[in-house]
């Protein structure tokens, strides 16, 4: 019996090698085929991807909890060490903010009065969904995060994701219980913005670096370092006026922007439901993997 098994194995050995090489070629072809398919038929590939993320979302949700807790503990320890200094800082900041509040109240009244005079059509007030970050890209090629809310909660492709600091990115894939946010810094991110003061429009284009650059700027536009940049609302998908970042450098004609968001501390994001009706058909999706619009 043993002898027969050995001889059968000896007979099948070349076949096994051949099968292995064949399966290697087959799987390489399958991978490349999938990459090509992702380029030309991104909808199908995205549905596949959303299916996987939706299935794994509960597991990721549980797994991301301990790391969030650990980060919170570290943060607590750090703030404990500097309690006195922080208290002092907060006190001065509070004083300053109270002054700002007074200014803001006056401006609000003034603004309201002007709006009434001009009979201005107001932008719809965005409703929002708050969700927790349960996954990040974990790789060198894309800058995305996963949230634990999906279409069941009202998230739609194209909506803006913000936190307290400013614009984080926008929704590119929405599953039933998970959502992928394309961060401002991703290679495929394009956000219509304006300079807050000069109202010069531009497109903020990510390139996987920490400082996305301003493109499609008017020929003679000047960008001063430190200038604030906000969303323009062009295209109607993002609410206008969301803080984005400030210009940090204008080397060789390319202005770069430092986003306000602290990328390492993304924990809860708000997804803004702003979309003006009829801008994007419901089925259209664009992803980190998809072609640029």
């Amino acid at each position, binding site marked *: 019996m043993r002898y027969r098994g050995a001889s059968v194995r000896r007979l099948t050995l070349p076949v096994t090698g051949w099968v*292995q090489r064949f*399966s*290697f070629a087959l*799987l*390489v072809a*399958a*991978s*490349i*085929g*999938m*990459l090509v*398919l*992702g*380029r030309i038929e991104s909808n199908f*590939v995205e549905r*596949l*991807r959303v*299916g*996987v*993320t939706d299935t*794994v979302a509960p*597991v*990721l949700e549980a*797994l*991301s909890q301990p*790391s*969030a807790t650990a*980060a919170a503990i570290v943060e607590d320890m750090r703030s404990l060490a500097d309690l006195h200094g922080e208290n002092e800082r907060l006190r001065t900041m509070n004083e300053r903010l109270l002054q700002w509040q007074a200014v803001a109240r006056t401006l609000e009244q003034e603004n309201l009065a002007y709006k009434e005079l001009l009979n201005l059509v107001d932008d719809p007030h965005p409703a929002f969904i708050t969700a927790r*970050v*349960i*996954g*990040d*890209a*974990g*790789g*060198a*090629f*894309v*800058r*995305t*995060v*996963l949230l634990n809310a999906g279409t069941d909660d009202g998230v739609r492709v194209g909506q803006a994701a913000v936190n307290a600091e400013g614009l984080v990115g926008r929704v590119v894939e929405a599953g039933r219980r998970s959502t*992928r946010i394309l961060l401002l810094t991703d*290679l*495929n991110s394009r956000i219509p913005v304006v300079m807050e003061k000069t109202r010069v429009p531009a497109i903020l284009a990510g*390139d*996987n*670096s920490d400082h996305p650059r301003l493109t499609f700027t008017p020929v003679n536009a000047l960008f001063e370092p430190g200038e604030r940049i906000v969303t323009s609302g062009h295209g109607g998908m993002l609410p206008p006026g969301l803080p984005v970042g400030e210009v940090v450098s204008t080397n060789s004609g390319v202005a770069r922007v430092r986003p306000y968001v602290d*990328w*390492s*501390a*993304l*924990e809860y994001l708000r997804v803004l439901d702003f979309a003006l009706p009829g801008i994007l058909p419901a089925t259209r999706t664009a*992803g*980190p*993997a998809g072609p640029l619009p």
Partner: protein
Amino acid sequence: MRSGLWYRFEGVIRGLTPFILTLSLALLTVVPLRIPDFAPVTPALTVIAVYYWSIYRPDLLPMAAVFGVGFFQDALAGTPLGLTALVLIIVQYVVIAQRRFFHSKTFLVEWWGFMMVAPGAAFVSWLFASLYFGVLVAARPLGFQLLLSVALYPCIAWLFAQVQQYMLRST
């Protein structure tokens, strides 16, 4: 009293260990650790796993399983679907082809082998990502990722060796 069925079940579970470990590492790759600037340079944990198991127990991590893990990681991480899958099966193919060289050598040889394989894997992924996106993707984070993976290799290999000793001795 343990029945034959239970034994068989236990055997199946033991046999699945390398696959489950590799899959868990794929999952771990996307868990946010909230360490500043860590996400773009997250070590290539699945490359480590595929390298290790292809040397020691390639029979327990068939190529289709490796492909599945790559597909799974691509779907979760948001990378072009097929990219990690391609890199992982190439890593496995290369390691199995050179398996005789690594087997029953010292750990240093094994680690050195990883230092040879990991840059190759990084280059393949960079090449295909650049082709896919149509621009030369920044390679700097990839370099850091590579360093981290090489530095982390001994820890993960040690863990795998423990698992292998306790779980897979009898199979």
